[in-house]
Structures are given as structure tokens and as C-alpha cells.
């Protein structure tokens, strides 16, 4: 970690987005994580994605649970409200926040201990409710803050730093998210920013439950020989199914592609996701096929990354509930309190 705060002065030539903000305006406090931690790369990718999408930082609410990953919301989007809540319970807090104000962008940051162990129940239920959010698990297969215990996403046979071999089956959050109805499911690698930034952008634009499982090696406790979540292992076994470009409304199309090698999906908000196929016949709009493919590749020892599933026209919790368009936290006495006349009628019916 760095002890030197960055100077607040910007270089005058730093590029600005449509809102006039530089990338620096999307940064947060100085990270207190270990030097080389994958999580810091994910924070950088979030900053990049929000900057590129011209998101007003204060319109994002960032929520997390407890753990190394859950500390990171302090390290990006310093102008956003953040909530470092209870271990494994960020999904419920995010659900409540989302119900209170449907107009903000909700970013949930969690880890493999936070989401796959203590919080597996809440992870499952937020996915099945279709809360409009981007949910990122910074997955390193290990407990960092308590120094190196296996987590529930550690692969069977993976070796701990002190030599123990994991004998328990790993929980695959991507498989769960697919099964439980998430409408945007991706897996990425903190070491591949070119892949991760467009995925985060697409997830932020998605109007439903978007989940990204981001493998993020722990340099302190899980980056050794024999670990299946180390930089080297992930690089060697990474099978990328597609490459994504996110194209916003008026952006001109410049690149040219081989016919048949590109799929374009228009999301509900008008953004276009252009997918360059790398795995032949992989169709990210076919949920059942995606589940099968992931299982097959997993059995072969590969880690599949890319945009794995997308429902371009999802519904969300508010739509399912039929809540009013105005955020609930903006309703006042007139809209909420039925008044004494209505109460008199209620009293009369109780006599």
C-alpha cells in the first residue's frame, strides 16, 4: 500500500469526459490493500468504466459487506455515498437502498467469503429478486483479512500457502447466478483490464440483476504454485469466449469485423453490446447452453471468462412490484399519509 496521498492538482491536459470530469474525479481514498492486490485493479476498472460512461459519481451508491474486497468501495468514487455493511449481508442492504430510491445506480462489491460462504443465502435471493444493480465478487478463493484460510470458492485440490490441500467442492457463483435468474452474468480476471472495463460498463447499463465474478488473485495468501486462483494459473487456463465493446447511442462504428464473427445485442437503454466471438457457437443469450458450456469447460480444468449470459430486456424488482416511478424516499406527507377523513372511515368500520 502507498502512504503518500496523491496530490489533488490535476495535470491540465488530463482528458475529460462529457461531464467535464477527469478520471481523477472518480477516484477515492488511497487503498490500504497489499501492493499488487487484484482488487485494486478492479477498483481502477470501475473508475475507468464510470468515467467512460459519463456517470455522475454522486448518483452511484456503492455497498459492500465485510472483507478485503468490501473495503474497496472507499478507494473509488469518493463523491458517492458508500456503505460498508455487515458480513455477507450487503445484498439485503442494497435491496433496501434500491427500493428507497430507484433512480440511483447501485454497485455491490463483495468477496468470495462474503458472498459464497456467510452470504450465500443473501446472494441467492438478491439474484432471484432481480434487483437492478451491478454485483461484483472479487474472487480470490481465500480469506485475506484473517490470513489465508480457504474460502468456499477455492477449487477442490487447490493448495493453501501453508501447504494444505482443499478437499471441499468449490461453489461456482456464476453457475448459481445463472440458475437463480440473474439477467447479466459475466466472469473476468482482474489482470485483464481490457476485458473487465467493457464488462463493468455493460453491467452498469443493464437494467436488472447484473453479476460479475472477477477472479482477483491474492498476492499475500493465494498466488503460489498449486493455487488455482494465482495470476499464473488463471492466465494459463483462461478461456475467453468473447470480447465485448459497449457502444453508446451516437458513437460511430469504426472497426471492421469478419462477417459472422460479431453479435450485436441492443440493451433496453439503447446501448449496443458488440460481442466478438472467440469460442465458436457460444451464444450468450441462451441460458441453458451457457450453463452446459461452463460445466463442460470446468470439467476440463478451464476458467471460462467473458459475457456469459445476457437477457437484453430484463425486468427488475420495482417492475415486479409495481412501485411508482418517483423514488419512495421523495414521497411526502401528501402522498403517504391518508389523513383524518380516511381514518374516520376506518374507525367507523371497527365499531
Amino acid at each position, binding site marked *: 500500500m502507498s502512504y503518500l496521498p496523491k496530490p489533488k492538482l490535476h495535470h491540465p491536459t488530463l482528458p475529460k469526459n462529457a461531464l467535464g470530469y477527469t478520471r481523477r474525479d472518480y477516484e477515492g481514498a488511497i487503498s490500504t490493500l497489499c501492493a499488487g492486490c487484484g482488487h485494486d485493479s478492479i477498483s481502477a476498472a470501475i473508475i475507468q468504466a464510470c468515467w467512460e460512461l459519463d456517470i455522475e459519481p454522486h448518483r452511484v451508491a456503492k455497498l459492500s459487506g465485510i472483507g478485503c474486497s468490501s473495503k474497496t468501495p472507499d478507494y473509488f468514487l469518493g463523491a458517492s455515498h458508500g456503505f460498508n455493511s455487515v458480513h455477507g449481508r450487503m445484498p439485503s*442492504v442494497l*435491496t*433496501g437502498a434500491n427500493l428507497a*430510491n430507484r433512480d440511483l445506480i447501485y454497485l455491490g462489491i463483495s468477496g468470495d467469503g462474503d458472498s459464497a460462504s456467510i452470504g450465500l443465502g443473501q446472494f441467492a435471493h438478491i439474484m432471484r429478486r432481480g434487483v437492478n444493480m451491478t454485483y461484483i465478487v472479487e474472487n480470490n478463493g481465500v480469506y485475506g483479512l484473517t490470513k489465508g484460510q480457504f474460502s468456499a470458492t477455492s477449487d477442490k485440490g487447490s493448495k493453501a500457502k501453508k501447504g494444505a490441500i482443499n478437499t471441499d467442492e468449490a461453489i461456482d457463483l456464476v453457475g448459481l447466478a445463472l440458475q437463480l435468474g440473474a439477467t447479466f452474468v459475466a466472469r473476468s480476471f482482474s489482470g485483464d483490464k481490457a476485458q473487465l472495463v467493457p464488462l463493468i460498463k455493460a453491467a452498469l447499463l443493464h437494467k436488472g440483476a447484473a453479476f460479475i465474478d472477477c477472479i482477483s488473485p491474492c498476492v499475500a495468501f493465494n498466488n503460489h504454485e498449486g493455487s488455482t486462483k494465482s495470476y499464473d494459473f488463471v492466465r494459463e487456463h483462461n478461456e475467453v469466449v468473447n470480447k465485448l465493446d459497449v457502444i453508446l447511442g451516437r458513437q460511430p462504428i469504426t472497426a471492421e469485423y469478419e462477417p459472422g464473427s460479431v453479435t450485436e445485442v441492443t440493451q433496453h437503454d439503447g446501448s449496443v453490446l458488440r460481442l466478438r466471438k472467440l469460442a465458436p457457437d457460444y451464444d450468450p443469450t441462451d441460458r441453458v447452453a451457457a450453463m452446459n458450456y461452463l460445466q463442460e469447460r470446468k470439467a476440463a480444468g478451464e476458467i471460462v471468462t467473458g459475457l456469459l449470459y445476457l437477457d437484453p430486456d430484463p425486468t427488475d424488482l420495482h417492475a415486479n412490484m409495481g412501485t411508482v416511478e418517483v423514488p419512495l424516499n421523495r*414521497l411526502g406527507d401528501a402522498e403517504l399519509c*391518508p389523513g383524518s377523513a380516511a381514518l374516520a372511515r376506518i374507525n367507523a368500520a371497527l365499531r
Partner: protein
Amino acid sequence: MRALTATNDFVVKFANVNGSGSASANTLFAKSILRMGIPIASRNIFPSNIQGLPTWFEVRVSGEGHLGRRGGVDMMVAMNPQTWDRDVAEIEPGGYLFYDSTKPLPKSKFRDDVNVIGVPLTEMCNAAYKDARQRQLMKNIMYVGALSALLQMDPAVVEALLGEQYKGKERLAQSNREAFHMGRDWALKNLECPIGLRLSPLDAVGDRIFVDGNSAAALGAVYGGATVCAWYPITPSTSLAEAFDRYCRRLRTDPETGKKRYAIVQAEDELASIGVVVGAAWNGARAFTATSGPGISLMQEFVGLAYFAEIPAVIFDVQRAGPSTGMPTRTQQGDVLAAAYASHGDTKHILLFPEDPHECFTMGADAFDLADRFQTPVFVMLDLDIGMNDWLCEPFRWDDSRRMDRGKVMTAEELEAGKTFGRYLDVDGDGIPYRTYPGTHPSKGAFFTRGTSRDRFAKYTEQGSAYVDNMQRLLRKFETAKAYVPRPIERRAAQPTRDGVIYYGSSSAAMREALVALEGDGIHLDALRVRAFPFHDEVMDFIARHDRIFVVEQNRDAQLRTLLTIEGCVDPARLVPVLHYDGTPITARFIRAAIADKASALNVVPLRKAMP
């Protein structure tokens, strides 16, 4: 044989089988008496079961207006063969046993000292109806008919109620009326009517309403501006969330779009319920959950976070008998300490103790103002007795000039104008800091909410001095709350006394009745009804003004007494516990006997210094 005689002062108990449709007939019976202007107190006594097990409904008729449970049964309507023996045994000598005489029963099944009234209900139903379910349901209405003749109930009142109940369903109303009269006519023709227990029209109900506390609390949440409800089904609180849903559909649907001005999440468990509440309240919505003891246990971690991170939350705790699963369908005031000090570390929470559905409504609405004002969890402590039983109480009242008190929330305009924002900065000296809702201002007012320690500007720190500073401010805030929570209510004895009694919640009705009786016994007590925690200064003044104070509670461990002892540094020897905790609602008879007993015992105890 002796036959009890009483007008407008007796207890009728119905012994039924769960799921037999008796509830609506029993409610009809109870409401008819109310419509005659006679106060009643009714209680369901039911098992943790949906169908087939015994269930009881008790109606206390009290022209004097006593609303607590009296104890004892003057007339048993014994409709459940399974519980026959114990039901018969419960009748007061000289009382009445009403039963279905279709099947002859051996003489050994009866008692010599009670008056037996047999009506061949099943036989009559089988003759009148073909459908099995109809036979079952109409049998219930038929016994109401027979009872109306025996007790001199006004049949016009019953007919009017049936008309209201089945408004727009004339066929149903008609068939119910017929069954009612079938029972009534049979009794008038074949039995000596009326019996010694009689109803006589009064004008003692006034404009009072008859409603259960869970519905009242839910309505309070609607009026209090709650927009987010997250809950997990648990007896006896389930009907609170369901009532909120019912009232919201009626009162909170946008008339133009048909969309909802509220959101209800049936969560996966109580942890998620309180998590949703905390998230919603953090983001500026008024939010609540409804639960019972086991749910309170599960919510502990979040309650501590809400206390420390200063997030409003309203928790309706409809208490039942614990510990563990305890007796899920029996009442108790068993969560007082668990709620007051909920969570790990040093915590204290605001508790409200409604005495009846009227206060469930009032406090249900007030809880949201208090939660916002103090940015902290507020527990509304109902119990099964208030929550799930219909009580006769003052009508709900609302002042249309009232506005929600959202507490100290800094706006975008104030931030823009350069007002200093420190999330945990005590600018007014009352311990309450300002907060901002997420998304308020592009560059000012954002902060990071955490359960870990931080300084006055919400910046992370593990410095001991900053932590202590914050914890001390939280204490100051709690101190400020004393003046905002509902004040205690005192009732002075007829003559000056050094003895007092403290009580709260659903014990109130029985306590008031007991006070009158004790006065008759020559025991004079000043009485204080505690309505909230933190304790108002008047509570400690009351204790200081008396030598000996009885503390009446419905739990084993004298939990309020413990709380008084700790918070007021009161000598425990001066607080004499009076405890009722068998799962049934406390009675005036119990309180009277217990206090009389303890009062005389204490009076003969030698002074301490004289003891070895």
C-alpha cells in the same frame, strides 16, 4: 343447585376445533354484545397449528369496562370433545355448560355443580343442510342463535352485523340469518330463557373501536409514512405485515397509475428483513420490519450496526413466550432486555410500550419520527395479547396539520451554501449529527458509512480518543431522547401512600382493574405506567418518591425491573417483582392476589439490621 346470576358481568369461553370456522361466529357473538353498548374483552387462545387442534375464544362481558382477562369461566360453550374434560372442569361452581346434545353422553362426563344446557346442534344441522362444510359452518352460527336466547342478546343487532359482514352477498347473509334463528327459536321453545347470566343494553362503549394491535400498528406505519416493509413470517407478528399490505393497497395506491407508493419484501429470513430496512432507511425511506423474539435474536448484528452507524429503523416486536421457540402462540413480555441492549458491544435502544391497539397506532406512527429524529433503531414492543386479539379501545386519531419529522437531514441547498457537514459532528450539543441522503450533491455531503470506528467527519480511524468521543456522543443522544419519547402516566392512590406500582404494555387493563380491587382491600398504591425506554425523569422521580414499588411484568426474570435497576441505579430491594409468565394474559385476580400477598409478607419482615 346454585345458578350464577350476573348481568353484564361474566365470562363465556368457547372451546372449538381449529379450522372449523368457529372464529367468525365467535366474533359475531362478541361484536353483537358491543353493539348493545356493553364493553367486552375477548381473547383467542390457540395452539401452534392450522387445523384440527383445540382452540379457545374467551369473551369477558364487563359493564364496568374492565378489559383485562378476568380468569375463571362462567359459561363454557364446549364444542370440542377432545378437550371436554378440562373444559368442564374449568367452569365456576354454579356456572353453565352449553354443549351439542346430539350424541348422548354418560353422566360421568358432567359435573353436579354446573348447569347443563344441551342443544342438538349437529342433529339440527344435518336435517337442514346437505353439504358437509355448510353443516360445520352453520353449526357455529346456530350456537350463537341459541346463546342469544339464553343470554338475552338483541337479535336485531346480530342481524344488522350479518348484513354488514355479507354486504353484497345477500344469499350468504340470508342463510346465516336462517341458521341464527334456527338456533334461537329452538332455544326459546325448548329451554328456559334467559338463564342467570344476562345481557342488558348499556351505553358504555361510546365511540370506541374494536380492533387488534397488529392491524393498528400497521395502520400507524401507514400514517407514519413508512414506504418499505421487509419481514419474514413468524407468529404472532405475521398479521402486522399482512395488515400493512392490506391497508397500503387501499390507501397507498396511486389513483392515476395504479402503482404502489410502498414496497413490501417478504425476505428470506429476519437477517435479510432488517438488512433491507437498514438499506432503505440509509437511503432516506421510512422502513420497518415486524417480528417476534426469535427474529430479534437473528437481527442482533444489524441492530448494532444501525445503532453505531446511526441509521433509523423501526422494529415491531410482537412478543411471544421464549426462550428458543418457546410457546409460539402464547403471550409474554419476554424481550424487554433483549431489545433494550440488542447487539454486541455497548448499545441501547429506544423502546415503546403500547398498552392497547390505540397506542399501537399512535406509537406505530411516532416510532418513525423518533427513528428519524434520533437516527437509530426504535422497537415497538407489542405482545401476542395486544397484537392478535381484538381490543376495545379509543378510536384512532390523526391531526392533519402534523408533518413527518425527518430529523436532521442536510439538503443540497445547505451544502451548496457552504454549511459544514460532518456526519458524526455534534453541532447542536444534543448528540444528534446531520446526515445526507445518497445522491444529494455532486461534490459535497458524500460519506462512507461503516460499522468500524471513524472520526466526526466519517473518516476511518482506530484512534481510541475518536472512538470514545463517538461513543460518548451516542450516550448524549440517548439522553436527549428521554424528553422525546412518550412520558409515563401516573395514577395517584385515593390516599397518600409510600407504596407504588410500575407496569407497562398489555398488563395495563388488568392492572387498572386490580388497583380498584386492591383499594377495596385497603391496599393503596400510586401507579405509574411506563411507556418508553430510555426512562423519562418522571419514572425515576416516582421511584424516589416511594419506599416500595411493585413492578408488574409478564416474564420470569423481571426484565423491566432489571432495566430500572441498571439505568436508574435503584436499590433492587425496593423494587418488588410481580411476575406472570405462563403464556396466558395476566389477570386482575392474579395481580390483586400477588400484591396483597407480598404486601402483607413484606410488612411483617423485620428490618434488615435486625436480621442475623
